[in-house]
């Protein structure tokens, strides 16, 4: 694992480092650039945004606050993870822009450091950190939204190449990325489970036979593409593990995303909606000529959300307190995506009621409250209630894995 020999810092050492990091982000965190800064790496819509975020990541990396705890020989800082955690905290505390190369430093990087060859590590890691090499992810396919294991994109071995045919969708930065981590089907034997024939590739994007089409989101903005593979030839050394290991490896990368390892690279890729911001919205909004916070009906519902938000914050602490989750330890972790994403959808929808006639305005109008943040957030909230397993699928997961209810046939 990265920087294995790195020594755990003393309190004092860590404090000094944190102080320096805070000073640096205080000094260098860019002011409002005058155009909308994406809250997540999935919302990069314009060249302006793209260039800005790549520059920012590079700057952070060069300052030593990204990849600080990745091995020095591949381009990291070789420090103990505690240092990077301090740096990442400083980023957040200064509300710095996100790290754009999420798939690279959050998914592909940890994977390479785990099971990649020396050569691969030397080839890819540094460019991930410097944002010279942007990565994207090719798991989902148009026909099998919720059903990853059913991926059908074909990879056929031909000498020291694979020939790819098929399509991937919901690929963030797919039109700008240099590499993709790709889940493809290398065999399709009747008897086998659908997972058996899947293989995992590091796939170069700038080659003949790969075309991308931008997807316009329901918000009217961009951020995802669909990728079309037509007899695209990629070098066989891009195969990770062996043919058929694809599903196992894909699940591994999903764990990086959730688990602890992602922190090793540092930075953060998503700014979450400040749900408590709705109280400020209610405070400054009027409906029917009255401040929303004076309308008993709105107050009542707002309190309901406060209770719900607080419950989820408490859940996040309680899940790490074994005595308080004895009966169903997996309950809180498995419900959290469902609970949080649905709450945000409802909350942002509710917030539109605060705005009276003004809720008719949308992003792009000077009269729109908070520049239309709440409308956009509501519409964007569906990416979370749909992506990564719809809420309906999430409920099945909780019902079956936590409550032990039978799978539907």
């Amino acid at each position: 694992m990265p920087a294995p020999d790195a020594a755990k810092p003393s309190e004092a050492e860590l404090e000094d480092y944190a102080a320096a990091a805070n000073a640096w982000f205080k000094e260098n965190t860019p002011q409002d650039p005058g155009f909308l800064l994406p809250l997540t790496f999935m919302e990069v819509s314009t060249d302006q945004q793209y260039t800005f975020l790549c520059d920012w990541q590079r700057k952070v990396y060069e300052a030593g606050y990204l990849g600080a705890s990745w091995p020095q020989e591949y381009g990291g800082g070789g420090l103990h993870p505690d240092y990077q955690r301090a740096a990442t905290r400083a980023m957040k505390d200064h509300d710095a822009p996100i790290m754009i190369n999420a798939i690279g430093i959050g998914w592909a990087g940890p994977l390479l450091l785990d099971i990649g060859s020396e050569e691969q590590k030397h080839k890819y890691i540094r460019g991930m950190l410097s944002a010279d090499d942007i990565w994207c992810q090719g798991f989902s396919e148009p026909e099998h939204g919720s059903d990853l294991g059913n991926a059908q994109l074909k990879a056929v071995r031909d000498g020291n190449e694979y020939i790819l045919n098929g399509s991937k969708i919901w690929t963030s930065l797919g039109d700008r990325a240099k590499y993709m981590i790709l889940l493809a089907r290398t065999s399709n034997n009747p008897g086998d489970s659908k997972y058996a024939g899947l293989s995992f590739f590091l796939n170069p994007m700038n080659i003949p036979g790969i075309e991308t089409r931008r997807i316009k989101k329901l918000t009217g903005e961009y951020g995802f593409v669909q990728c079309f593979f037509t007899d695209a030839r990629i070098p066989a050394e891009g195969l990770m593990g062996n043919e058929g290991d694809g599903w196992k490896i894909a699940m591994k990368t999903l764990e990086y995303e959730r688990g602890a390892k992602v922190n090793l690279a540092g930075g953060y890729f998503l700014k979450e909606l400040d749900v408590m911001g709705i109280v400020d919205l209610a405070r400054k909004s009027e409906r029917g000529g009255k401040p929303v916070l004076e309308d008993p009906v709105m107050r009542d519902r707002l309190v309901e959300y406060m209770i719900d938000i607080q419950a989820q914050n408490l859940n996040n602490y309680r899940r790490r307190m074994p005595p308080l989750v004895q009966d169903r330890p997996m309950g809180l972790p498995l419900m959290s995506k469902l609970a949080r994403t649905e709450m945000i959808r409802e909350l942002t929808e509710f917030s539109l009621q605060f705005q009276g006639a003004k809720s008719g305005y949308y992003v792009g109008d000077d009269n729109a409250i908070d520049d239309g943040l709440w409308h956009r957030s509501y519409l964007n909230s569906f990416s979370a209630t749909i992506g990564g397993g719809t809420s309906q699928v999430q409920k099945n997961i909780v019902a079956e894995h936590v409550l032990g209810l039978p799978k539907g046939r």
Partner: protein
Amino acid sequence: MDNLGTIGFTEEQVELMDVATNFCRDKSPIDKARALIEDDRGYDADVWREIADLGWLAIAIPEEYDGLGLSLAEVVPIMEQMGRRILAGPFLSATVATQAIVAGGSEAQKSDWLPKLAAGSIATLALAEASGDWNLHNIDAKAENSGNEYTLYGIKQFVTYARDAELIVASVKLDGAVRLALIERGAIDDGAFRREAIIDETKRSFEMVLDGITISADALMDADKSESALAHVDLAANLLQTAEMCGGTQAVIDYTLEYLKTRKQFGKTIGEYQALKHPITDAYVAYEKARSHMFSAAHSFADQGRGEIATRMAKAAADKAYSFAADRAIQFHGGFGFTHECDAQLFRRSAMWNASQFGDAAWHRAKLANLLF
């Protein structure tokens, strides 16, 4: 409670329902509705002409002013089909603005304007202001007397289709009372208008600066008539919005059902999953309830007391049904639902827009509480 709306229908209503069903389906296929989003004007002027030729703008205008002498009840089924097919245009704005004159106009104002409007001239309303207050009395715009003219001041928002209108009915304060001013579009230069970015991309709306516009004294409605006209217009707008929303709700449910019947996941038609099957059924049940309210509001609209309760109930029910149905439509379309290409967002945005104008469900419930209890 004997002040609740009743339900019924007229032959004309049923005939117009049939005609409008075919007309809107033929004139506004979804790809055309989408193409018009990119169009600056936002609607098809030829279709507007056909609508005028069909006499649909004359329906609720008295016969002595070249109208058909029917009522808004007969306009409702047309508006419903326009909402169902997202047939873009100033039909709602024009019809409601026309009602301001029908309800509050002087003899001169009526004979000046109604025949033109019946023939297809576009009128619109300029009522909303920066406060976003749905209480139409809470405005800052004002009129100041200068000789036998009045000069207007203030900024109006959500003046729909203002650029194409020949008549803009604006609310202003004079001596503490709200008055309706009939402004000829010709007398204003385009600089007074700024196109607004609104949540419903299939509609057109403008911010309008009144400052400096002058109108003759006889273009101002009497105070008492302005009062009753304003109240009438408020309810008329909610009635027609309800119709548009019911049409949209039906459409978004049908659109989603189509997907649930064809899309397969995990080897099943997704419509088999009760997690999708039952909520869409809930949406349908809510839709039928809203539609019953719509017919009741149309039928009882002119009925003292009953009309207001029935209309507010209808708008509240339609808002609830439309918002829920369109929200679930996005969710149930999965990844595709998250794209602009999926029609679900068109309806969700339309629901948001209609909730934002003339009051949402909670607003009307608050009004109803005072009317019912």
